[in-house]
């Protein structure tokens, strides 16, 4: 069996394991997960005797004999999410994406971005389904026992979110499922048919027809994003990575992430996959102070409102009257970052490298090595133990204080001023917008009342006419239904109601900014007193 076929079998088996896990999940949930079927179709699409793939994977209707012997049954039940756990690699991928996006927008400010934004604007307008949510990406992972574990994060292309299919998978193009499987088959076929002939001295790899048969209609940016993401997931799936879209992440400098489109996007994600989250990463705050990662799910009231009525009419809002404020739309969840043991070792190595550069300077004095190391060193890092054993004590001391942790950049007082200024500017803008929304709503309310008055007057007139006709014994001129039916103008006005969601979203944004300013005050004051103490003493 040729080498590549073996790799194909290995990848198929890895995908098989993954699909088993998900099939078990979905079975518990009670919905049939169609992923194994489409995966099987992909693998089986070009099975020209290229090696043995398990039959269970090929046959779309086979009942997977899931081996749950080793898995604790309690771990397979679906619980509402109470925590989000991100892998360190995912967090760094997010931060890299944020930095790239910032650089790209800064450099391409004049020419390219103008065209890009116009095209994305048209994309969102034309498709009607594309949501412009800014720099974003998708979290891949799985939720286990109420903890959503995201192991990887891939970046989304452009500001428009990709469309989601009914089972939560990203669509490759707007021409939904049929094109999806065609897309899935094409890369698999191209890959499987790549022949590799190797000799001892050289490697030659012959590639097949390179033109990937992607959906032709990739014109609107939602399609482009979906294409990009779906293809990325395909490639990752072949290597055994998680490909289940567990959530959405958004890059929001200074925490300005609230927008109608984002709430819509989260709602759509929830509809497709009930156990999904939104993670907001704030690169500016991360650079100044602690890493800022927040995870949200839609609150139940918000979900009910969005499900029931897309325009948030007065009736719908009356349902959740006393409980719905802007900030209560999204419920925050605690976030944890997880390292594997290898990551811990690597961080230790980075620490050591930083320390090695310093230690030749300080190691001049042999006396140092005994005195400083025996001093009481609070053990803040537990992960350097593996690597620190082989190093001299001075290096370990240095590693603990000069390495990665703790980060002394946050002592910088000057950065805080700009931070506060930007916050205040954004706050002013947001309040202006809020005021405008309020004014607009008041105007609408006034016109609604006028129309209602007119309608009631007309109804009264008709009734009096009816009564006079009755009195004079003539047939009724207006039927009862005619009288009570609202006139066309009234219905038009009612339909014109400004979207209450906008108000809620703006209010939530202002709230977020105020909270952030408050949060900044604590450390700011502390730092100032620290400076005072240092200058005194």
């Amino acid at each position: 069996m040729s080498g590549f076929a073996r790799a194909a079998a290995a990848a198929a088996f890895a995908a098989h394991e993954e699909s088993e896990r998900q099939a078990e999940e979905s079975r518990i949930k009670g919905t049939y997960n169609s992923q194994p079927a489409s995966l099987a179709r992909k693998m089986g699409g070009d099975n020209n005797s290229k090696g043995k793939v398990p039959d269970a994977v090929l046959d779309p209707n086979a009942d997977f004999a899931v081996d749950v012997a080793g898995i604790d049954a309690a771990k397979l039940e679906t619980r509402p999410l109470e925590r989000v756990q991100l892998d360190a690699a995912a967090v760094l991928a997010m931060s890299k994406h944020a930095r790239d996006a910032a650089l790209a927008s800064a450099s391409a400010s004049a020419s390219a971005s103008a065209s890009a934004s116009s095209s994305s604007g048209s994309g969102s307008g034309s498709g009607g389904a594309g949501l412009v949510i800014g720099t974003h990406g998708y979290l891949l992972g799985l939720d286990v026992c109420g903890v959503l574990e995201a192991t990887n994060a891939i970046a989304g292309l452009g500001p428009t979110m990709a469309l989601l299919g009914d089972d939560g998978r990203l669509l490759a193009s707007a021409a939904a499922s049929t094109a999806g499987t065609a897309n899935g088959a094409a890369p698999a076929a191209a890959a499987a048919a790549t022949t590799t002939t190797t000799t001892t001295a050289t490697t030659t790899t012959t590639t097949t027809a390179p033109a990937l048969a992607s959906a032709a209609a990739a014109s609107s940016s939602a399609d482009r994003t979906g294409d990009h993401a779906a293809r990325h997931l395909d490639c990752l799936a072949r290597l055994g990575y998680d490909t289940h879209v567990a959530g959405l992440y958004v890059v929001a400098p200074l925490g300005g992430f609230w927008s109608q489109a984002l709430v819509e996007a989260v709602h759509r994600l929830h509809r497709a996959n009930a156990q999904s989250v939104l993670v907001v990463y704030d690169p500016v705050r991360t650079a100044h102070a602690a890493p800022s990662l927040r995870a949200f799910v839609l609150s139940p009231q918000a979900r009910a409102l969005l499900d029931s009525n897309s325009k948030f009419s007065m009736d719908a809002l009356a349902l959740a009257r006393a409980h719905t404020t802007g900030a209560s739309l999204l419920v925050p969840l605690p976030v944890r970052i997880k390292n594997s043991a290898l990551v811990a070792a690597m961080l230790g190595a980075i620490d050591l490298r930083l320390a090695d550069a310093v230690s030749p300077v300080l190691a001049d004095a042999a006396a140092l090595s005994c005195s400083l190391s025996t001093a009481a060193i609070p053990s803040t890092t537990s992960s350097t133990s593996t690597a620190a054993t082989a190093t001299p004590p001075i290096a370990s001391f240095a590693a603990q204080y000069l390495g990665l942790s703790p980060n002394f950049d946050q002592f910088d007082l000057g950065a805080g001023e700009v931070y506060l200024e930007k916050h205040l500017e954004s706050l002013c803008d947001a309040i202006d917008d809020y005021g405008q929304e309020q004014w607009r709503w008041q105007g609408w309310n006034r016109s609604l009342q006028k129309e209602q008055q007119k309608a009631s007057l007309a109804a009264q007139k008709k009734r009096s006419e009816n009564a006079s006709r009755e009195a004079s014994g003539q047939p009724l001129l207006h039927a009862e239904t005619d009288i009570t039916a609202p006139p066309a103008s009234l219905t038009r006005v009612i339909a014109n109601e400004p979207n209450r969601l906008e108000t809620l979203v703006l209010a939530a944004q202002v709230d977020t900014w105020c909270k952030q300013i408050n949060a900044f005050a604590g450390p700011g004051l502390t730092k100032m007193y620290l400076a005072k103490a240092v200058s005194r003493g």
Partner: protein
Amino acid sequence: MAKQTQKEKEKEKEKERERERERERERERARETDEQDQEQEQDGLGAAGFAASFLALQLGGGTIGSAQIDPGVHLAILAHALRRPDDLARVMGALLGSVSDETGAGDIDVDVRACFPLSITENDEEVSVDSEHLSQMLLLHLQQNPKDSLVGWYSTGNKVDANSALIHEYFASEFPIVPLHLLVDADLKDSRMAVKAFVTSEAGVPSSEFAGTMFLPVPCTVKMNEAERSVLDLISSAKPSVIEESAGGFVGSSNSIGILSDMDNLERAIVAVQGMIENIQEWVSGVKSGEIPANDSIGRYLLDTVSSVPLIAASDFEKMFNNHMQDLLMVVYLSNLTRTQLAIAQRLQNLV
């Protein structure tokens, strides 16, 4: 208000400068040793005999002088190593980034910013790359970030062997670059995680059929920007979780840490600085009482650090301090006011 530099920040800056100087010296040393004494790994063609006598080096313009790697790349490589199927000895992937273009004399610096995994199959005799996968992933990543370009490839393991030479040659021939090879030891063979970077050069008599390749080490450093540094700072302080609740049920040793608020983070840093100051104090008192032999360089270093605190007249400082304090408090008061007003407005609107 003038920026208040604290003693510790100055100390940190001093140490950074020292580190920079050390790195420079190290780089020079590395270049010298390259030219004199190559520690290379030979490929399986038995070119070992040629090493000492035939120094067919092609150093000079166009080779890679140093490599700077983002920490995200390291973590992605480790994640890939963790995910490999059990029968695969090592994993490989491609590196993306940018190259500082110095087409003239001098070495180029490579900046590695991203990576993606490749599916590679190998056994003892042969190794093959799924080039379709490679080109597709490359296209996707370039769509994402047009500034990146392919700069090399990585693999796990702790030595370079014949297959690596073949893959390296493949990369050199398929793409118009001088590829960089990054070797990450994910098995922790020497009880530490070694990350090495290499370029190749021909060994042996040039243009003869016995010519081999040798891998020359390139100094590589980890380059972080502020955001990444603060994330890594948080991650590296993770404690092992006591109760193991990973999905597969296996009891591994994974560490997790919750996101700390700003105050917690600051507190940690301040406690660390306090510890440092206490250590210094102990040392100084030890020297004064004669227990510890005095060290001139350290003493002068400490003196420099202490005197780097700017001297500001007390009254001026008080004024600046009070101004800043008042600004901060006023902003906080306004934001609280805004929040309250907004909350009232929303409740009122709900009543309408």
